[in-house]
């Protein structure tokens, strides 16, 4: 079946502009995660959605970052007033249940490479 898809694959934007990154998880997966991978910080957790529960936003680096998950499926990560340090690969993943205690495989999308000039 189809895996996790992300769009766009690459995004170049100017400092100060807003960007939206999209993630389509595997159909039926309850949990959805956003991570960021950059040279300086490695792979960092950003936000986690599980069913209808309030999202875990503990990894968002500033209030310029926000994410939505509509209808329990597609998610959009929005970065407002982008800065050069936001340049990174943004990875989305989904898992079947998102159980407390973990132990599930997370299936990753190919990522969106964001470059802020």
């Amino acid at each position, binding site marked *: 079946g189809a895996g996790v898809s992300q769009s766009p694959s690459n995004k170049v934007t100017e400092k100060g502009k807003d960007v939206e990154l999209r993630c389509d998880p595997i159909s039926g997966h309850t949990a959805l995660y956003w*991570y960021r991978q950059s040279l300086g910080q490695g792979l*960092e957790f950003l936000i986690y959605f599980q069913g209808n529960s309030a999202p875990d936003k503990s990894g968002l680096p500033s209030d310029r970052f926000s994410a939505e998950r509509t209808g329990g499926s597609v998610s959009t990560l929005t970065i407002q007033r982008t800065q050069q340090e936001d340049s990174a690969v943004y990875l989305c993943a989904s898992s079947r249940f998102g159980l407390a205690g973990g132990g599930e495989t*997370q299936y990753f999308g190919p990522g969106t490479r964001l470059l802020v000039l």
Partner: protein
Amino acid sequence: SQQGEEDPQALSIQEGENATMNCSYKTSINNLQWYRQNSGRGLVHLILIRSNEREKHSGRLRVTLDTSKKSSSLLITASRAADTASYFCATDELRKAAGNKLTFGGGTRVLVKP
């Protein structure tokens, strides 16, 4: 912030040799997973080991976990050129509210030369 440290940061071996990489982490965990990443894009799950397990095998992969030392190792036997990739360990913390959030190590870049 990253939970884990991985070593070595980079590893270069000949095809057919074994590759061993290590991961250390800081907090108590439920599970530890290893992922592979090709060309800086999406990660692929390799193997999961639970905190009450000490060793696990999957094909040419062998993972060990020592919770007393907060460390894990990944061994790839009889390596192939296609194993060239970056390898990351990832942990989920032993906290009720943590859900399935993963914390990744810094990764080991493995180059397998034909």
